[in-house]
């Protein structure tokens, strides 16, 4: 089904798109949105062994009206994997126009309990993976006429959360990585923006536990509820498409207004 012509700014007709972290809800939503807008897709994992979730994302892509995506299991923290994924998308889709990264490995623990191994793993999964994908994907996009990169992150990039110091540090680093890359690549027509999610209904989130934290958090949220992954779709497509042609280095939060709070 063609994307409605009155929304042509948001359309991605036949664009080559790569979603990394497609096993996550945000990755699934991104893949479906890009597909609906007309993009041809490769979906790749953050971690191997997530085939079932990748298959669900592939289903969501087709339900959104798109062709079956190319599915690629990979590890986003292994350079050779990421490079091979980007090479593969360029070869099979004829280039790379849009890349969405939904790379996320939450880590909650008291600071004094985290060892150096934890530090390395949190940084590798949340920061280095974004850096490597941006580098490899960016290289491919710069070889053509630029493109658009959307990095999905968290409002924890903007504020401190007790018990999440390493995670906050990694997310904060990603936010400023995006700003610097935006400036570096702006003149080559390669845009990169950040989409920050509020507390989301995602498996493993501390917001879903039945404890004091989760109970108080729900009362604290402006909408008294968590963000549903599907609510990221519009913003993802805005940032990935020519609708945001004059926007780069920007952060768009989907948090119901949480960042407005004292």
């Amino acid at each position, binding site marked *: 089904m063609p994307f409605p012509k009155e*929304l042509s700014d948001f359309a991605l007709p036949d664009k080559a798109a790569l979603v990394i972290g497609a096993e996550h809800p945000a990755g699934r939503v991104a893949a479906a949105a890009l597909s609906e807008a007309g993009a041809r897709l490769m979906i790749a994992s953050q971690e191997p062994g997530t085939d079932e979730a990748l298959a669900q994302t592939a289903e969501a892509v087709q339900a959104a009206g798109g062709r079956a995506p190319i599915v690629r299991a990979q590890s986003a923290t292994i350079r050779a994997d990421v490079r091979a994924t980007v090479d593969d998308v360029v070869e099979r889709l004829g280039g790379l126009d849009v890349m969405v990264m939904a790379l996320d490995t939450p880590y909650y623990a008291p600071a004094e309990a985290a060892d150096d191994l934890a530090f390395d793993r949190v940084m590798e999964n949340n920061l280095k993976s974004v850096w490597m994908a941006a580098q490899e994907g960016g290289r491919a996009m710069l070889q053509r006429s630029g493109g658009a990169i959307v990095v999905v992150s968290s409002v924890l990039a903007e504020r401190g959360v007790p018990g999440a110091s390493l995670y906050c540090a990694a997310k904060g680093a990603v936010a400023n990585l995006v700003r610097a890359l935006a400036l570096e690549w702006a003149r080559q*027509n390669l845009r990169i923006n950040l989409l920050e999610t509020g507390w989301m209904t995602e498996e493993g989130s501390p917001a879903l536990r039945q404890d004091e934290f989760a109970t108080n958090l729900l009362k604290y949220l402006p909408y008294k*509820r968590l963000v549903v992954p599907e609510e990221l779709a519009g913003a993802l497509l805005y940032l990935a498409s020519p609708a945001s042609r004059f*926007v780069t280095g920007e952060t768009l939060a989907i948090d119901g207004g949480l960042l*407005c709070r004292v």
Partner: protein
Amino acid sequence: MKSENIMILIVMDIAPSPDYMTCINARSKGSAAQLSEQRGAVLVAQGGCAGGATTRAIGDRAPGGRMLSDDLKLDGKVAIVTGAGRGLGRAMAIQMAEAGADIVAAARTVEQLEETAGAVRTVGRRCLTVRTDVALSQQVTAMVAAALKEFGKVDVLINNAGAGEESFGKTIDQISDEDWRRGIDVNLSSQFYCCRAIIPHMVRRKRGKIINIASGYGLRGGKHNYMYACAKGAVLQFTRSLALTYAGDNIQTNCIVPGIFPHNERLMAFFKGGKFIPLGRGGEDSDVGPLAVFLSSEASNHVNGALIRIDGGGLAGGITPTGVAPALSA
């Protein structure tokens, strides 16, 4: 824990509001069982309602189901756009009309408003023009009343009217009391007057979208830029407080922060053709339209209190001149 269980727990935890129940009933057409058959439907119903109506089930967009493009379209919505006679306001009005909205175009100059109205009608939408000086609260109140009389409702308010050029440039000792008040009134009080006039209507309907237009000068300072920078900075704060206050009434308030949009040759020369902007050009009015469409649409129902910059990357930097990088070391 299985995700369906988690979802149900959340619904119960937050004590569903009457709106939420209405939404569930409307969506399920009386069949809760049918609803629960859809994967994740309970969560989506709950999620969709507090932030507005969304009928998508998680991960599923069954053929014939609601698509993202359905959420992005503005069919049947009525939008007030102030400062709609020219520049960003006109561009937003026309692009929103293209996306399906009927427009209430408010500005001081009737001839310019009629041009905007002509363009809106050309794409097949209705347009009411109301001559308004938004710095005068009685005129704002009358404009909103006229909009409600004509259309019976208002879904979107875009507080775009402002006066950049006349609100900066003088040295501080040259600014009269009247200059100061006018600068603050036209750029800040105007947005307050419009919100005050329309929010009770939106609260009654339990839905609404407010889009305040600020400026990069609301986040950074400028030489000889007092009223404009102060007023636009206040617009950001006004946005945040409205966002928190009316989230529970399903009113989303957001702020578009335009960077450099040179609307005439004098400004184009002042900003040196945009060569200090990372993307290498100044903004074009039509660049803002898609953002206005997104923020007016059901696709942004959980975007609230956001300041969204549209500035060619200008505000991502600022501690080195644009286009200059430190010398590379080996």
